[in-house]
């Protein structure tokens, strides 16, 4: 089986890697590129722990075949702190509000939530609580009961709105 050469942009940098056609983008990111922030919680698109942005759209990297990434622009949690024009040395407002709001316990779902929340705020800067809850319904968290996650997204939305 020959491996395919894939060229794409990951977290703002031109990147290339080799992968078998049936390899998931998630495995490619984790094993070929060493970006282990996205996690496999289910491998079937039901938990959102592997959420990444592909051309700005949030998706489960476990459902994407690696060759599909050809020419695409990808963002993983590792690229979040340099997104939205925030200085790369600092945290993204979502990361900061998650920390301050105690929105994580074990932390394994956190990268997926952060990426999905960014996708939400990118197209809906002032979401209602219900909109946040539905937008994050594809991300399972078993530790927090979601309360502090929702509040942290609300707070980040306020901060991002006031920054622009």
């Amino acid at each position, binding site marked *: 089986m020959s491996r395919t050469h894939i060229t794409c942009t990951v977290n703002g940098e031109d990147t290339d890697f080799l992968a078998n056609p049936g390899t998931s983008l998630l495995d490619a990111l984790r094993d070929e590129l060493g970006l282990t922030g996205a996690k496999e919680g289910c*491998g079937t698109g039901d938990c959102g722990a592997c959420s990444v942005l592909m051309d700005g759209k949030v998706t489960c990297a476990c459902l994407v075949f690696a060759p599909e990434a050809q020419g695409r622009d990808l963002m993983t949690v590792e690229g979040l702190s340099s997104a939205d024009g925030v200085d790369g040395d600092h945290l993204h407002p979502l990361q900061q509000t998650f920390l301050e709001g105690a929105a994580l316990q*074990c932390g394994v779902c956190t990268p997926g939530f952060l990426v999905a929340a960014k996708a939400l705020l990118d197209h809906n800067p002032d979401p209602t609580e219900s909109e946040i809850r539905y937008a994050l319904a594809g991300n399972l968290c078993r530790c927090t009961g979601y*309360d502090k996650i929702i509040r942290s997204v609300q707070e980040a939305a306020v901060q991002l709105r006031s920054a622009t």
Partner: protein
Amino acid sequence: MTAIENPKTYKWVGTRPIRHDGYDKVVGKARFAADLNLPGQLHAAYLRSPHAHANIVSIDTSMAEAMPGVKAVVTGDDFPALDITDPNHDVSINVLARGTVLYHGHAIAAVAATTKAEAQAAAAAIEVEYELLPVVLGIDEAMADGAPLANEQNYQKFVGPSDPSNIATHTPLERGDADAAMAAADIVIEREFDCAHVHQGYIEPHACVVDTGADGKANVWASSQGHFMVRAITAAVLGWETSRIKVTPAEIGGGFGGKTTVYLEPVAARLSEKAGRPVKLVMSREEVLRSSGPAPGAKLRIKIGATSDGELTAIDGWMAYQVGAYGDFAGMVGAMSVASYKFPNLKLESWGVLSNTPKTAAYRAPSAPHAAFAIESVIDDIASELGMDPIELRLKNAAVEGDLTAMGMPHPRIGLVECLEALKASDHYQSEPAEGASRGVAVGFWFNIGEQSSATVNLNEDGTATVITGSPDIGGSRASMALMAAEELGIDVYSITPVVADTEAVGFTDVTEGSRATFATGKAVVEACRELKVELCRRAAQTMGVDEAEVEWVDGAAVSPSHGGEPLTLAAITAQAKRTGGPLTATASLNAAGAGPSFAVHCADLKVDEETGQTTIVRYTAVQDAGTAIHPSYVEGQMQGGSVQGIGWALNEEYIFSSDGVLMNPGFLDYRIPVASDLPMIETIIVEVPNPSHPYGVRGVGETGIVPPMATIGNAIKAATGVRMTSLPMSPPKVLKALGDAR
């Protein structure tokens, strides 16, 4: 936060700093076990049983061994047979079956290969011949006379191995004369309940990487609730000396009790030994659900008698817990967890019953939620029959210090009354439910445990401190350790680096379970800090040239009146450590007694769609006694997380088995844990009735929160519809059917 009787004010304890492990977790750098890769690493995969109960007639691995990329294959034959009375016997035959498969998904063999796909293909090529055995699936079926055995190697605990049985445990508890009291009661209500198996549902599947070297030593990186436990069980299953294994704790992606045992590590260690290369072994979600520990299913019959003015006079209860294919203590705890009310007369028995289903594992307050669902439902029905407010009836009977638990032991200082009063006074309870919504309340209890912990505190030359413990952090315990150390030493919480160290870098520490980490390991941290403060004062006395007895530790500095009262800071002392006797470090180890029981009271407002049976929770409040909340955000987090797991258990989570014992819903699509859009905010009220057995009054908070939700929701559904739900989960089809039956 409601501080009811904690008069102390602290500088750090009770504040909400950013958790020390938080940064790595929000930037994607935190290393969970599956995130680790070693040079030359192989990937492993299992062959699992397609039958729920069968003898293995033969296993042929030759074809698998010849497949591309395959470097090692193991079966049960690669492990020593432990004696049936060995405490690790059951886990050893669960890790890989020996001769008999006991449930669908039971591991039979494992393959290590260059890639995961090669390992999976080779595992599928292993040929096994089976001889099918009868499958035992239900509690009644297993307990019937002449029932086939689910596991011929099981015997009833405390009875003995001579008598194989489907019974794991039988625990009777009696006091007073329940029959007479029941006969004399003004009102008696009896109901039968059942609960489906549920899974802990941690988002991170079990994972490990093991590198067994040619020197015979194994380096293990594991995601678990206790790496010393992983070391001990791995050694026992392999028949190795404990010292051959070093376990480094990876970050753990949720456990909730499900990672208090071992599945992978002995298998990966043997594969690595055979292959001479590191091996990574990671479960899929399907494997997690099929083959790692669900919580027991149960059947319960509960009868409670009361006087017409609401005094509970007797309880008579029969509880049977389906503990899976192996003997387990889970069945014992159900009856023991009856501890919330005075009950002068009590007759309880609980059973652990086997079936050809996965080996159960602990899940947050194991076995208490089932019992509380049943008891709190019956108590609610008594309150409504008597026309009493459900909180008033509970207050009238609530256990206080000195009252007896079902085990017969008097309660120490507990905070149930304070929790009930706090809910009664809350905005939630004082407000009417929203239009169309109805309300339920229920109480939960959990013992909490102590066990062994070690801590080392190193003071660094720049005046900072490293706090090293052996307790995997599953909910924010590193932040708690840092806060207690900051309080003791009087330095900034961010000057403290809390670390969870490997089995060779810190003293033995039991599993993070039983809500014990902040209590017991915290106690060790405090003891080590206190020892350091004595040493700091001694060093300061040396520097100041005063008598040691004249130096006091105040607010992070040594102060001596005879030295003009000028404080010598911790940083100043550590900077001079070389001149005053060398590094400043202290270690404390203990076996903690005196874990403080924690009570919780929950309140739910919900709506029931009577045409579809769907329940929507519109408001939810959790009240819990934390003793002292070291980091209130993470105490709230435990309460909220436990509440939502309980809401899932109440409404939709269940193991659905086919008649031949195959789990039909082994994925997050059909094993329905709550999603964000299912829920309202979870309001919290922390009650603080300090535990006298902890220096800061800590009670464990991790588990109790899962105990009340099922009855809370069942009671609210009753208030909404008039129908008492007695079967978990209270899913839309069941609610609709119950509504139809009632019409």
